[in-house]
């Protein structure tokens, strides 16, 4: 019918027309559920399956959890929650299980951990392809790619941080994300070698707003400014101007210095810390350079 054809086009353009249900999905959900799903109750079947993964989750059957989420997202590809939860299960729950709780030998554990993280990333990226520009999924991808416990799984850290910056950028540009997402974009971008100038422009722009002046942003700003003008900018004076006081500067930069594993830029940080510790009269045995790096608390 011409009206139906026109209506189908309109619904498709408005993103209201569901994609056809694949034959493999029909097989996976069984005949009864397939009939129910084809009878216009796809999201209801997805909701049923969403209860099923919890059983697999509690039994630590991670392959079944993944398979269930693959089916769920075939049924309801625009529900962001399913994509996020499916990825979260692989990147965090399954990966942590393989790393700490499984009976596998150490080498196999590491392999299984990495495979699980990669599987979660791939699932999340498929979610983004199905929901282009979605801020929540892009923010979550950025989070996974910059997680200090996970990014080693991706082997090429430079490309990983660049991908994270791009994902955070999409989320922030949507206008639906919180301001912290733009800061996270900066943190990812600052860690990509060769893009420091681009990161500095963003850092300066964020620094204009006092609400953005978190310790991490101030430290990243400091490192990028020193990198931009080596030998011109004096680290000690710059630290005092950014942080306001020697004590504040020493505290923030010291914590930043200890986050070595996160690959943040540290241009001028050591020089500034030496000068600040001298200013504050900190004895050499209490110097930050004598402390073992420990993970600091997160800040936004």
């Amino acid at each position, binding site marked *: *019918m011409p*009206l*139906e054809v*026109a*209506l*189908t086009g*309109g*619904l498709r353009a*408005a*993103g*209201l*027309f*569901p994609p*056809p249900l694949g034959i493999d999905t029909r097989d996976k959900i069984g005949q009864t559920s397939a*009939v129910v799903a*084809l*009878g*216009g*109750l*796809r*999201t*209801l079947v*997805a*909701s049923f399956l*969403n*209860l099923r993964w*919890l059983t697999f*989750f509690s039994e630590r059957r991670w392959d079944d959890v993944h398979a269930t989420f693959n089916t769920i997202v075939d049924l*309801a590809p*625009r*529900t962001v*929650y399913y994509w*996020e*939860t499916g990825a*979260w299960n692989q990147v*965090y729950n399954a990966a942590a299980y393989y790393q700490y709780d499984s009976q596998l030998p150490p080498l196999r554990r590491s392999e299984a951990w990495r495979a699980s993280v990669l599987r979660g990333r791939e699932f999340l990226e498929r979610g983004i392809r199905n929901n282009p520009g979605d801020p*929540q999924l892009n923010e979550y991808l950025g989070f996974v790619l910059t997680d200090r416990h996970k990014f080693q799984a991706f082997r090429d850290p430079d490309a990983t941080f660049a991908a994270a910056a791009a994902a955070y950028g999409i989320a922030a540009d949507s*206008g*639906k994300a*919180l*301001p912290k997402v733009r800061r996270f974009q900066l943190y990812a971008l600052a860690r990509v070698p060769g893009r420091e100038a681009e990161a500095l422009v963003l850092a300066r722009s964020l620094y204009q707003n006092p*609400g953005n002046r978190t310790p991490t942003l101030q430290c990243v700003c400091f490192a990028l400014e020193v990198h931009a003008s080596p030998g011109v900018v004096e680290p000690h004076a710059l630290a005092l101007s950014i942080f306001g006081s020697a004590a504040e500067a020493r505290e923030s930069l010291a914590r930043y210095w200890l986050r070595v594993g996160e690959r943040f830029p540290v241009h001028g940080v050591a020089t500034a810390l030496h000068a600040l510790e001298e200013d504050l009269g900190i004895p050499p045995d209490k110097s930050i350079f004598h402390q073992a790096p420990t993970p600091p608390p997160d800040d936004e």
Partner: protein
Amino acid sequence: MNHSPANAERSHPGSHGGRILVIALHAFTQLVRMRVFYFLAVFAVIAIGSNFFDLPQHAGPETAGVNVLHAIKSWSLGTMTLFSVVLAIVATALLLPKDVEDRTLYTILAKPVPRLDYLAGKLLGVLLLLVVSLALMDLLLAAVLQIRTSILLGQLMDIANARGWALDEVASQRAELLTHGPNWSLQGAVVAVFLRAAIMAALALLISTFSSSTLFTSITSFLVYFAGHFQADARGVLLDSGAGGHGPVARVTGMLVALVLPDFQLFNVIDAVIEGQAMPLILLGQLAAAGLFYVVFYTLASWYIFAEKEF
């Protein structure tokens, strides 16, 4: 006696609307007496119960709880679809055989009541039942969603105050949350549920005019319902298939298939609404026009068959 549609109306004085309304109200009362509204208790349990499906998730506090709103909509609209389609088919399939069994049909047709008025009245009675049922379910769904959304909004404001979010940030997060709460798109989805059920009622009416039993009408209607979800795919395959696929015969066949089997996938817009998509009013209007077309077409086809039927 010739009851053909062409001359069936001649000797029936009075208002069509009045007659249809009387028959519709009678059919509605008849169905209400069958205690069909008991299913609302089941719906209430589902709508309220879906509040407790708060599954583990990783989301930050600002988005936590949105999945519960999604679950409430999914379970409730799914149940509404199921109930409304079953109700539309079974109630319509029951009406004509029951009137024959009670001999009410003979009494009515012995009076100056055109057969079209009788059929339209019966259908309207079922549609009235669907409207009332869906309105009650919609009311309950909106209330449950509203309460839950208010709770989540309160939590969001607490987080916003604690973290000192700017006003525009609060407004953006609030607007995002409200897309999952009770809104006009959700009402559009309920209208889509009604339209699908209305088409099924009209189709069941058509089948019951030549069917010999309620069971046959119900089974055939359900089969057509499921086949209707494949209609667009099947038509696409027919039109795109090799030789003759684009010829006039294929096109006419495709049109006939579309006429007999409505494309029910069009009404699956409810899935997108559950997932938080907005439903433009113009598309809802087009959907209503498509639904109305099928209801009118099936009713006229029913009249054509019923007018010739001897009792």
